């Protein structure tokens, strides 16, 4: 299959990025961030509460944790439901015991199916972030813009209504976007997006996404990657949480505030045998001075309030 001449033509080969969604910005060039209370680390705990419909189509790709087995995949369906019934409450109790609040990404389907869970999450003081309609409705460039606009509108409005919160954050299901997603999020009053794991600090988006910020929502330091995909033990995961904190804490002393983000899924981290090492890793972090636990919206506001 011969390649056309255009295979060796590079229209975006020049200074900066190869797209217009944000500007190139190496971390050492940033102005030092000052977090509230003089904190070095903004500790951002993220939970992801998802609904995987039993009639999954898995198109255009299988979302991580998706229903990969033959229909009806009760194994995976009920495992996710375990997270939404039991695991999420085990994590809420753990967080409350540590005095931590979290940002909870939710599919709108959670609000339709389990309105109590949405209201209770808000009542407990956690921030709710929109995560599409459900895990069967992925955002991708094969989706007509009108369909995607409708999905985003449904997701955001459903969660705003159910939670009573503004719902300022967005994570696409499986962190998958189309070329239109960022612009459409802005249309729907979203302030920050979590799909691009390219930084340890917030940064502004540009072009059609101007006004939005990207937030450093952890992909690598997540139970999904470390425990589910890579089969590390929970102790090994906890060790990495501690190692990440130590490095960021030291870096912040020299270079300004950092965000430490940790992502947990109730169907993974919410299993009984996993709670203790994760709780101990978080407790060890909280014994350090200079840790500010905040939600995504609070971190964003503090970032935007930095003197220019």
């Amino acid at each position, binding site marked *: 299959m011969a390649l056309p001449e255009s295979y060796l033509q590079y229209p975006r080969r020049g200074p900066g990025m*190869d*797209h217009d969604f944000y500007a190139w910005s190496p*971390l050492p060039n940033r102005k030092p961030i000052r977090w509230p209370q003089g904190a070095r680390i903004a500790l951002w705990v993220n939970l992801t509460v998802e609904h995987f419909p039993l009639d999954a189509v898995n198109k255009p790709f299988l979302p991580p944790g998706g229903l990969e087995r033959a229909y009806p995949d009760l194994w995976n369906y009920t495992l996710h439901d375990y997270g939404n019934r039991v695991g999420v409450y085990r994590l809420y109790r753990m967080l409350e015991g540590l005095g931590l609040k979290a940002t909870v990404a939710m599919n709108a389907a959670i609000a339709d199916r389990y309105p109590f869970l949405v209201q209770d999450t808000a009542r407990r003081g956690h921030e709710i972030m929109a995560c599409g309609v459900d895990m069967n409705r992925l955002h*991708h460039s094969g989706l007509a813009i009108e369909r995607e606009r409708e999905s985003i509108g449904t997701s955001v409005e459903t969660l705003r209504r159910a939670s009573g919160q503004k719902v300022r954050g967005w994570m696409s299901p499986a962190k998958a976007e189309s070329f239109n997603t960022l612009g459409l999020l802005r249309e729907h009053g979203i302030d920050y997006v979590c799909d691009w*794991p390219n930084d340890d600090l917030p940064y502004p988006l540009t072009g059609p996404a101007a006004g939005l910020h990207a937030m450093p929502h952890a992909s690598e330091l997540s139970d999904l990657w470390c425990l589910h995909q890579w089969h*590390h033990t929970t102790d090994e995961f906890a060790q990495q*949480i501690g190692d990440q904190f130590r*490095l960021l804490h030291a870096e912040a002393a020299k270079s300004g505030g950092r965000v430490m983000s940790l992502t947990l899924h109730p169907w993974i981290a919410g299993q009984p045998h996993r709670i203790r090492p994760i709780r101990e890793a978080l407790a060890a972090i909280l014994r350090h001075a200079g840790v500010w636990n905040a939600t995504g919206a609070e971190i964003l506001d503090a970032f935007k309030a930095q003197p220019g």
Partner: protein
Amino acid sequence: MSEAPRRAEPGLYDFVPPPKRPRITWPNGARLAFWVAPNIEFYELDPPPNAARNMWTRPNPDAMNYGWREFGNRVGVWRMIDVMAALGIRGSVSLNVAICDHHPEIVRRCLDLGWELFSHGVYNTRFVANMSEEQERAMIRDVVDTIRRASGQQVEGWLSPALYNNDRTMDLLAEHGIRYTCDLFHDDQPTPVRTKTGRMCSIPYSLEMNDILVYARQMQTPREYGRMIKAQFDQLYEEGAESGTVMCVPLHPYMVGQAHRLEPFAEALDYVARHDKVWLATGAEIARWYLDRHFDAAVAAARAPGG
């Protein structure tokens, strides 16, 4: 269009097991030549398709996977460079040369530290598979010219993007003055590579020590990676007393430069650097030494009767 005939053997090197090899020596009596090869890469958000390989597993734009790779340039590479600089370990950069255009400040930082730049193609989203010979030549010229313009260096080493090669690739590289390839995994020592023209050798790179393969394919923890580097080093250091060995640590800043991975990596590098019979070298320094002092003897050993 009929496909080109396939060969049953690459035909790039000879079978010369350790008992038949001339002894390799390194400068100052070192037993082991240690080099670190960071892959500094640019992945395009919307690259053109190639029937042999497409980078992204999701439709363009694959925000998640693109963002993950880009972490290397925005964040990881700066941390990785600081760790290496603090230990006095120079990098031999496997460079997607479009980095010279997109992010020249990364290249400048590497050059300020005296690092080598070698070729990792133009972008990590363009592969030589399915290129015509003319296209492949044009791509090689682009790489050689871009590195010369950005650094004044004459590129000596080559690692193909995603390690894709055509049957003619090594001949074309030798023709363009490339002296070493990193795409062959047949040995722990340099070996001659058979090309139509020029003198080219293989310098051991590594699949086993490659951070992306250790973390994401073997799914090991950062601390296990540190232990693996030390274990690999201990064995090759011991064997190097008989005949000099090479150890490479191939890196990807978007992997090793994550905050939770830096500390165990730095500790392993420090362990290596503390040994006295280690030559902390670049890929080109190892290749030049080998080509000047050992290449001819290795070719002769391969031709010796009774093989």
